[in-house]
């Protein structure tokens, strides 16, 4: 214990007396949930981020130094995420922050990033209001529910020929947001809503909900749920003997989702910003490298971590130094060629220009059936 205290004192002493430039690495802080109910998805973000850092370092790093990724567990809770950011800033002296996963946690660390005037990039948090807060240090390298709904409502209504849809979402900002955005856009296209239901994170038995679904007789059901909840739900839809069309948002095109769901995954549709089967040379290289390193194909969150770190690394390289204002200014000029298209940022820090896809699970693989670029919000 005494050693830790002494070490801590030494560290702060050294850090105070030596300017930040004297570090022999460029440090980027990453806050993700590594424990708790979404730890599973947080781990994928970290995997993607590590791959990006490894690649950049193999190519010589940035500013002539290696990038050092410092990962902290924010548990997706506002308080823990803020603590993690304070530690990353105070102790580790990171030059850029990436995180957090849940929108509520990201909302909590945004003012902290602004207080220290450090750029903050999220690759995941999709609550639309985050980029509306006028925080100049915040950048969202992800789709919002509204943008996804806008991109896919037409395809769902016209190509899948849905007329009566039931909506099921996980009971949080993201799930409710997804249901509201999709139902609004689909309703505008003349699709009738026959049921709207929410369930809690970690729910396991959906038979009651599905009983109501069966009675509502929809020809399509929209689901906003993550890997575990979503896979159990889809399985139970089949166990109940319902043969309605299923389409969802979340990590549905991932190998894990498909493995967990098994045969019940066949034929379901998912609207996702990334699928490992996207047919671009850049994506094929990414999938190959990811699979070689982790033994599994990347999903939405692996790609999100990979993209966020690349965007950060490239911005630091363009800034020519670790000055936060310079990094912020060069982030605003991002034009990053990702596996899933090109990312640019609006004045409010919202990413656009990358492709989102509608996939159908066929023989255990996500098959891309429609692709559309995500437009800037207007």
């Amino acid at each position, binding site marked *: 214990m005494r050693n830790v205290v002494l070490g801590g004192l030494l560290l702060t002493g050294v850090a105070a007396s030596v300017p930040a430039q004297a570090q022999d690495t460029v440090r980027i802080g990453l806050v993700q949930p*590594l*424990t*708790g*109910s979404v*730890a*599973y998805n*947080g*781990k994928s973000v970290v995997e993607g981020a590590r791959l990006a850092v490894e690649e950049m370092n193999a190519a010589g790093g940035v500013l002539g130094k290696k990038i050092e990724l410092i990962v902290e567990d924010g548990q997706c809770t506002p308080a823990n995420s803020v603590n993690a950011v304070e530690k990353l800033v105070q102790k580790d002296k990171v030059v850029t922050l990436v995180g957090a996963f849940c929108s509520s946690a990201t909302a909590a660390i945004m003012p902290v990033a602004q207080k220290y005037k450090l750029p903050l990039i999220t690759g995941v948090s999709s609550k639309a209001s985050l980029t509306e807060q006028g925080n100049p240090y915040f950048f969202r390298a992800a789709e919002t529910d509204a943008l996804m709904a806008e991109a896919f409502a037409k395809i769902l209504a016209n190509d899948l020929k849905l007329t009566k849809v039931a909506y099921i979402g996980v*009971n949080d900002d993201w799930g409710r947001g997804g249901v509201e955005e999709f139902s609004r856009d689909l309703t505008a296209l003349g699709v009738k809503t026959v049921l709207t*239901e*929410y*369930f*809690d994170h*970690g*729910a*396991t*038995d959906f*038979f*009651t*909900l599905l*009983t*109501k679904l*069966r*009675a509502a007789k929809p020809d399509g059901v929209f689901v906003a749920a993550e*890997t*575990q909840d979503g*896979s*159990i739900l889809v*399985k139970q839809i*089949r*166990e*109940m*003997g319902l043969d309605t069309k299923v389409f969802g948002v979340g990590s549905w095109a991932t190998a*894990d989702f498909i493995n*967990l769901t098994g045969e019940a995954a066949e034929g379901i549709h998912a609207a996702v910003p990334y699928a490992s089967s996207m047919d671009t040379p850049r994506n094929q290289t990414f999938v190959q490298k990811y699979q070689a390193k982790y033994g599994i194909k990347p999903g939405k969150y692996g790609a999100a971590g990979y993209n966020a770190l690349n965007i950060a690394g490239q911005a630091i390289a363009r800034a020519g130094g670790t000055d936060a204002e310079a990094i912020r200014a060069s982030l605003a000029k991002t034009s990053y060629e990702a596996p899933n298209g090109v990312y640019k940022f609006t004045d409010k820090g919202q990413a656009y220009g990358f492709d989102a896809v509608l996939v159908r699970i066929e023989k255990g693989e996500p098959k891309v059936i429609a692709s559309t670029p995500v437009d800037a919000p207007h």
Partner: protein
Amino acid sequence: MDLFPQFLANGLVMGVFYALSALGLTLIFGLMRVVNFAHGEFYMLGGVSGWFVTNYLGLDFFSGLIVVAAFMAAVGWLVDRFLIERVRGQGEEPGILLTIGLSIFLVNGTLLLVGPAPMKVAGAVAEGPLFFGPIAVTKLRLLAVGVGIALIVGAHLLIRRTRLGAAMRATFQDPMAASLAGIRTGHVYAATFALGCTLAALSGMLLASIYSAQASVGGLISLKSFVVVILGGMGSFAGAIAGGLLLGVAEAMWGGYVSMGMVDVIGFVLVILILLFRPQGLFSIRTERA
């Protein structure tokens, strides 16, 4: 009204698992006065070790169930002998702190060993719908419910018809007198804790064959088990069964007719009602120690 039979069936299925899990908790509480906050983690360990034996060791479901039962009984026994015993007779608070610590240790230890991915236990029979008139169930669910009921009956017979059960009941009634009568109460406590852990773990493994297991599932199960135990009455065997079924059906009805999004609330509403109108629980007649 035509949805009612399905809601009832859904509720009864869940109720059996709630009862099975809460049975372990109420045994440990009733006999040992240990408020076991790690109960949900034993449930979780059952699912995770069930996944391990069916997935990695390639055992079939029923052999797996036996191996998991033996393993978790050993774990429960060791936890009692090396941890719970140290705080025995010091009131309830040290036990609460100890089991909270144990639960944090088990969750994070599991995360470290197997990671946060959901794990699926290979079931004994094929999945797929099965219809009884308007009611849809699956073979897997029926089988799991059958095994669950068999385990409940088995636990009942163990307590009512065996020497160990008699020793347990004697210790429950008066530890001092039981000890004077020559019952090795230390062993009885360890056996009770082992039995409680095993019941929770088997409930976890049965459910993980229908859903999946994950390091973080224990918290909610602990809470629900406490709800069931309070509903049924502390230490009451019949109460745990009735409480479990009541909670399962109440959740299904609430979810069906009111809101799925607030389904976890109904258990606590029931607890408040019980505490207001029948604080000793539905079945318990012993209140002086609770």
